[in-house]
């Protein structure tokens, strides 16, 4: 069940083009690389590989991919200027099936049989890490996003002193989430007792890590963290955690929870009469549909925000503001905007920018030099490597906010930015409110 789609606007080759290219190529190169599929390809096409979880449990992240790829290709007319030539753009999207092994497999297919000039991947460590690892081994330039930088960098065994050679990443990190959450809670009157829900997975272990995760900074800011311990994902019962939080008098709940688990927890908490003043969790509240699934109980739940329609950035390709991009996504798909829409678009911005500045797209060193020199204002914010915490990571702005019911529509909930101390250039929409 491989899902593969090739999108190449303006790259539709007619029989005549192929004959012409063939005639020109026969004399010069046929003898050199006879039998390789690349011989049939026009030399003036740049191929960008894109790995994303289009099916499986992570598929919600990839919902904006199709929209982003087609709207970006439309906007540039399927062409990009590079090295004084006009190149056809071919974006080859491959499905990771939400499986790291499959992600590695399709990444190596993209490298070895599609011979892409640039490899891109997005959406969670399960996608970015195996793809980046394949790129590193095969010495192919690679740009990834939408995965906190610690799981990306340390999860791949990165050494901060040397870093990686071929693979670059932009997103925010754990330290940003912690700062945002503390800012959100600082706006409320609470007893500073926090219940933590950390699952036994990559994210949960990182967030709950005694040294690198939440415990230390929270203690430093005067909060008491009640951490009952790592639970397994897709648990059907949270009464043990709820009674421990109740006993400790927790007024805040935090964690990094899968959407179905948070629904189970939040429903049981209501049944058991546990009603904290704030619930600020990662992952579960990312998508509007999972907040809608909570019915009325989703009001004023809070989470980190990395992209929203009110972010003050514009696309370098379409010139759209964040609000316009979100509206275009809704118009095209009928769905409410979600945060991956902006980052998916920005990844293509970075990719096309890298291609356009490269001296020779066929030369991997030149492509790499072009990535390193990136300095572009994208719809997700400015991206440039060099000032990051490690060589291969560029940090992006992060703020925090709450889901509020929107009775006047068009969707049941909207995400409201209520804390911007970490990125003051992103305006807040309203003040922080306690859960009633």
């Amino acid at each position, binding site marked *: 069940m491989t899902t593969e789609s090739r999108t190449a606007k303006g790259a539709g080759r007619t029989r005549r083009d192929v004959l012409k290219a063939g005639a020109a190529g026969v004399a010069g190169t046929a003898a050199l690389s006879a039998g390789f599929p690349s011989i049939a390809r026009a030399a003036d096409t740049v191929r960008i590989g894109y790995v994303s979880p289009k099916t499986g449990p992570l*598929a919600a992240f990839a919902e904006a991919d199709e929209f982003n790829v087609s709207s970006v290709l439309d906007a540039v007319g399927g062409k990009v200027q590079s090295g004084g030539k006009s190149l056809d753009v071919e974006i080859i999207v491959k499905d990771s099936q939400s499986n790291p092994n499959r992600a590695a497999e399709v990444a190596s297919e993209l490298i070895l049989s599609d011979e892409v000039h640039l490899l891109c991947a997005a959406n969670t460590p399960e996608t970015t890490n195996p793809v980046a690892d394949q790129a590193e081994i095969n010495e192919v330039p690679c740009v990834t996003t939408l995965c906190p930088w610690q799981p990306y960098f340390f999860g791949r065994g990165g050494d901060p002193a040397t870093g990686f050679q071929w693979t670059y990443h932009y997103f925010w990190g754990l330290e940003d989430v912690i700062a945002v959450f503390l800012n959100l809670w600082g706006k409320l009157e609470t007893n500073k007792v926090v219940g933590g829900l950390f699952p*036994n997975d990559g994210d949960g272990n990182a967030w709950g890590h005694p040294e690198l995760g939440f415990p230390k900074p929270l203690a430093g800011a005067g909060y008491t963290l009640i951490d009952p311990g790592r639970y397994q994902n*897709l648990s059907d*019962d949270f009464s043990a*955690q709820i*009674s421990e939080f109740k006993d400790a008098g927790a007024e805040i709940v935090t964690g990094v929870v899968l959407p179905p688990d948070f*629904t189970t927890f939040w*429903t049981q908490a209501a*049944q058991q009469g546990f009603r904290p003043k704030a619930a600020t969790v990662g992952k579960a509240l990312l998508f509007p549909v*999972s907040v809608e699934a909570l019915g009325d109980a989703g009001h004023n739940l809070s989470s980190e925000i990395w992209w929203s329609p009110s972010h003050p950035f514009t696309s370098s390709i379409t010139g759209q503001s964040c609000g316009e991009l979100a509206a275009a996504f809704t118009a095209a798909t009928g769905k409410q905007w979600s945060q991956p829409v902006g980052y998916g678009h920005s990844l293509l911005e970075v990719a096309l920018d890298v291609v356009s500045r490269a001296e020779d797209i066929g030369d991997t060193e030149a492509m790499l030099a072009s990535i390193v020199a990136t300095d572009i204002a994208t719809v997700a914010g400015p991206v440039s490597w060099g000032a990051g915490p490690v060589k291969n990571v560029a940090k992006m702005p992060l703020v925090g906010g709450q889901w509020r019911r929107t009775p006047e529509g068009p969707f049941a909930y909207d995400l409201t930015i209520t804390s911007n101390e970490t990125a003051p250039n992103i305006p807040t929409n309203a003040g922080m409110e306690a859960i009633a």
Partner: protein
Amino acid sequence: MEWLDAIIQGILLGGLYALFATGLSLIFGVMRLVNIAHGDLIVLAAFLGLAMVNGTGVHPLLSLIVTVPVMAAIGYALQRGILNLTLGRDILPPLLVTFGLSIIIQNVLLEVFSADTQRLKAGALETASIAIGDQIAIGWFPLIVFLAALGVIAGLQLMLFRTRLGMAFRATSDDHRTAGLMGIDNRHVFALAMALALGVVALAGTFMAIRTNFSPAIGPARLLYAFEAVIIGGLGSLWGTLAGGVILGVAQAIGAKFHPGGQILAGHVAFLIVLVLRPNGLFPRTRDR
């Protein structure tokens, strides 16, 4: 008191597991078919309920009036059209076919309903509870699920031992060749068993969808608990399946009291202990010859 609370919550959760498992237990009992697509059929039923609720605006529990017969019809057609052809001496073909079915259902659901996580909203019923003292609260919804499991199993048990259809089921289960000689049409009986099983699946799917979020890929995770409940209870025994579900639920709740990481592990350990001590489960009714 806290321990009592954990045990009560565990028992109620066991009701849901028993509902997951009943259909599996029934079809295994009657035709020795292991249905790998069972979890995905639960999710399919949940999506049918969702389509009903979104289309007509009825309460999710009312949507059962439609989803139960529809799933039963799907079950009959599925057994008659596909699964009957795979039954035989070899146990491998039905396993492979239902495994393929599982993948097909997941991908069709993904194509039709997208990867969005969904939920059936039951309004105030979701969070309503009865307080017993200040330590214990019993949610109305988990209680309804448990009572429904009791009702379904009692009903099926009555059907199996008090009706001609039940007699046909038991006869086919004991020896389908001789049953055939007595004029029982095995293909029809198998299809009816699958129809009944999927009727229960519709109930389980709807309850699961009210309890928490679901998405097309979540089926296999539900299959595991269903299998464990069936094995703990003993193959082919419906009351045993209920006991299996409750043991699983209580083991998880008690495990979580010790450490949240032990929750799911405790369920699996309880399953293993039963398997070691009583390889045929606690109350086995069918024995393979």
